[in-house]
């Protein structure tokens, strides 16, 4: 991902301004976005911003909202701590935006959320998965699912697709992500009549898992759930195969990294993990989105961040249409009532905690490549 030149950034920003300038007399609906367009998370920020921008352009091309044009005002927080608060304050007080979109990183969403909450301006995070983000107040929403939610989806996947009855759990006790995922998986899997035959633990940074896997083998299971990150996942899978354990092994989106295949080699063939989205999903919506995105951004294939950025804008637009106004409290209520909204990343319903409940995508490894398997509804 090349760091964009300031000129190109300026181009992106002004293109949205120009769109707004070519309007009929009525004032545009201003939507603020803060994103990490530069700095260490620029890869994520750029993707997300491009998705959001594409959605805004499409809405305007289709005639805007409530008979008015949409104006997207984007602020760059340079992936820096403290900048998001400044950016959001500026968007609300000076630009008078009616809603805030952002961020990918949970820490920066957490900076902005209290400000949006205080000013009663609805905020939608496209892809911050830390549960605390939406706990900041009732004006803060997100269009992605939170980390532990994948546990629920994976339990269904294990039961329905893998036909697993006895599962093993291998949890990293030193990671909140892993513990949360395991908890939700256990609850759902037991509720569906499955048995957790054995539960083993490890700590972040461990390399030897043979002892735990030997215990797993002795328990006789037909699937192993490893909520954790890609390094451990690769080592665990490799050692499991060496011990003659050939049952399916699966995990959450912490597995999503090319390093999984680099470290795991042939051993990780046939493992599964869940994530938000895949450009290979064969539905017309996703394929249409991939095409439009490629046409707009020079052949680039949209990743999960782009798809979620796109959906955040569409969910907001949908709420504005239903509310019939851009007034803060009314818009908030409309957002909270979002139900079965058809986005790129699946059918989105915002629950009482203002988190998205939606389908997850299952990916497998085949011939050293990540391949889409299926979509699992919650």
């Amino acid at each position, binding site marked *: 991902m090349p760091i964009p030149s300031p000129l190109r950034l300026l181009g992106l920003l002004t293109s949205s301004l120009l769109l707004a300038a070519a309007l009929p007399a009525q004032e545009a609906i201003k939507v603020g976005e803060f994103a990490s367009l530069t700095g260490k998370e620029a890869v994520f920020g750029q993707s997300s911003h491009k998705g959001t921008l594409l959605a805004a352009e499409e809405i305007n091309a289709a005639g805007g909202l409530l008979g008015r044009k949409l104006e997207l005002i984007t602020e760059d927080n340079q992936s820096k701590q403290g900048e998001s608060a400044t950016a959001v304050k500026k968007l609300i007080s000076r630009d008078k935006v009616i809603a805030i979109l952002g961020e990918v990183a949970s820490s920066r969403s957490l900076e902005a959320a209290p400000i949006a909450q205080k000013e009663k301006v609805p905020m939608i995070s496209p892809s911050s998965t830390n549960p605390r983000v939406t706990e900041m107040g009732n004006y803060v929403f997100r269009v992605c699912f939170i980390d532990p939610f994948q546990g629920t989806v994976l339990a269904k996947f294990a039961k329905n697709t893998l036909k697993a009855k006895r599962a093993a759990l291998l949890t990293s006790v030193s990671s909140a992500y892993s513990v949360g995922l395991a908890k939700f998986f256990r609850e759902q899997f037991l509720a569906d009549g499955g048995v957790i035959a054995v539960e083993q633990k*490890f700590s972040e940074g461990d390399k030897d898992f043979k002892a735990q896997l*030997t*215990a797993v083998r002795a328990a006789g299971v037909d699937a192993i759930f490893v909520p954790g990150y890609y390094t451990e996942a*690769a080592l665990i899978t490799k050692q499991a195969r060496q011990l003659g354990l050939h049952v399916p092994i699966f995990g959450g989106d912490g597995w999503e990294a090319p390093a999984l295949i680099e470290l795991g080699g042939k051993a990780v063939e046939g493992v599964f993990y869940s994530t938000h989205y895949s450009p290979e999903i064969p539905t017309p919506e996703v394929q249409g989105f991939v095409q439009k995105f490629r046409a707009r951004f020079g052949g680039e294939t949209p990743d999960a961040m782009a798809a979620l950025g796109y959906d955040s804008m569409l969910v907001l637009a949908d709420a504005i249409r239903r509310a019939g106004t851009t007034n803060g409290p009314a818009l908030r209520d409309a957002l909270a009532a979002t139900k079965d909204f058809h986005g790129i990343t699946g059918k989105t319903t915002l629950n009482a905690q203002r988190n998205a409940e939606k389908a997850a995508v299952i990916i497998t490894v085949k011939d050293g490549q990540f391949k889409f398997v299926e979509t699992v509804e919650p």
Partner: protein
Amino acid sequence: MTEFLQQLLNGISLGAVFALIALGYTMVYGVLRFINFAHSDVFMVGAFGGYYLGRLVPEGTLWGGLLVLAGAMALCAGLGILIERLAYRPLRGAPTLNVLITAIGMSLLLQNLGQYLFGATPRAFPEVFPVTNYEVGGVYISSNQIVVIAVAGLLLLGLEYIVHRTKIGTAMRAVSLNPKAASLVGINNDVVISFTFGLGSALAAAGGILYALNYPSIDPLMGTLPGLKAFVAAVLGGIGNIPGAALGGLLIGIVETFVNGSQWSTYKDAIAFAVLIIILLFRPAGLLGRFSVEKV
């Protein structure tokens, strides 16, 4: 029963690596009476040496694997001698505390240099030895585990031979017993000490490669925990005692594996160290160590 045998096998192959590292600690202590904390980072350099050498030979051949092993051992022997010459020799005769702090500094230097040169992200260690899995009555053993146990066993026998049957080994034991008297009878202490560092570091390099073969993700901080466990193993067996270090390594590996496979896996490090404390309470000089009275 199958589970027990499998865990025992897992434990022995883990313990064999700890034993190899523990030998380095114990030999240096035997000769110089100080703990070389940089030893665990020589172990890391050995694994990285294997990583780069592994690219030069075809993957999955026995001769290629042995070549990588020998190359990394030679490299680390050189590094060990260099560290001793540059950092420890100028401090010979200084209080032990100074040398100890230098050793910690050396360890940090190697770790950070490693992060600077190799990057902090874990890398996949190449499969330098041919890999096959065997099954004997429900117990699975991978060829890598066989390599680990065989290489560790051979190196131990080789070391035993060097220390007890060769001239330099006799000199090492003499320096360990009494450095002043040794130099009085014409032993060049510097040569003996360099040799000890070289030998210990070569064993650490072998340990690094064997460890990386079984757990093929290497990073510049990989030495810290195995190094600490090996240090414990050396103390457990009786520091300064070579068979004791090997025994201690195996013991720590087996205990850790059995705890890991049980419900208390989270406490595996705590239990390993508790074993150390209990054994030292009853045998303060370690399992095979002899308690010697300081004569004034």
